[in-house]
């Protein structure tokens, strides 16, 4: 009886053999808030000298994230925009990251660790890689900005000061 049932179930519903669709997850309120009302979504002019663009992806889940920073002459991040295609945690991580880095120096922003984001959003262990992606994105944006402005050196604030003096 049991055997028949098991066999029939297997044969009659191929769907039962397919991987489960995205399982229902219970997101933390903060994740939902950023997901439903993401901050700083959009685009900055990637060609501008003042803008650094970070573009990163997580192949395992098919997420892609673009994070852009605009840096003023004091070496401070004055504007920041992001666009993320991915799960709620990836969107929330990048949204929170944009709030966090606005007003920071490049040096401060470069020191942000994914654990800070994971903690703020109470991400579960399986979603830690989403916060990692946001960390990769800001690092990549800073790197892009610095490669456009090599004279600024590792400390953008000091570099900008020196450039102003030289001019």
């Amino acid at each position: 009886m049991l055997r028949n049932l098991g066999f029939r179930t297997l044969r009659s519903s191929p769907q039962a053999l397919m991987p489960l669709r995205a399982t229902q997850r219970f997101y933390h309120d903060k994740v939902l808030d950023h997901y439903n009302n993401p901050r700083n979504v959009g685009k900055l002019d990637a060609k501008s000298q003042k803008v650094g663009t970070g573009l990163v992806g997580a192949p395992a889940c098919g997420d892609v994230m673009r994070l852009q920073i605009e840096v003023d002459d004091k070496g401070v991040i004055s504007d920041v925009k992001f666009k993320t295609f991915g799960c709620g945690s990836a969107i929330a991580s990048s949204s929170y990251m944009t709030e966090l880095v606005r007003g920071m120096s490049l040096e401060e922003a470069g020191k942000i660790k994914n654990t800070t984001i994971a903690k703020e959003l109470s991400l579960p262990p399986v979603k830690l890689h989403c916060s990692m992606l946001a960390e990769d994105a800001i690092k990549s944006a800073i790197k892009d900005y610095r490669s456009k402005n090599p004279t600024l050196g590792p400390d953008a604030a000091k570099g900008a000061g020196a450039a102003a003096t030289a001019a």
Partner: protein
Amino acid sequence: MSKILRRWINYYSLFPKTLAAGPPPKGPFEIDTKSLRNEYLKAQQQAHPDVNSGATAADSATLGSAYRTLLDPLLRSRHILELQGSTAVGEDASLDDEELLMNILMVREEVSECEDPAERAKLEQANNERIESTIHKISQAYSENDLETAQKATIELGYWIKLRAAFHGED
């Protein structure tokens, strides 16, 4: 634990009739799914605790994972790459192929900004074609034992499959 263990199970070896040649580069990437299904059902019958009291639930579960993995071109290719020791398709891997990422972002923005149903259907069709041609690229790469290309195309395929789900609001 199961995750680490899984890497060491060669799923091809569970279906010796259908997949006698083993995974690429020795065997082909394409699989006779009908034959695989038959072999799977027979193996599952034998592994069933009601038939074989010595069998454990794990055997049945492993067979299930193996079948699902081999049936799906993306999962199959990831499995082959894992067997080859690649970590680029794993959960913690990150991607910095700028050209590919730019292309993915561009396509995804185009889809998210498109509201006209007819236009969306066209974009979805284009994506399905993209999926087919990427699978073909993977298969070709394996037949030439070009693992680097196979890996790159597998990563790309993951993104287009994800986009396919996004058309149906499963993103």
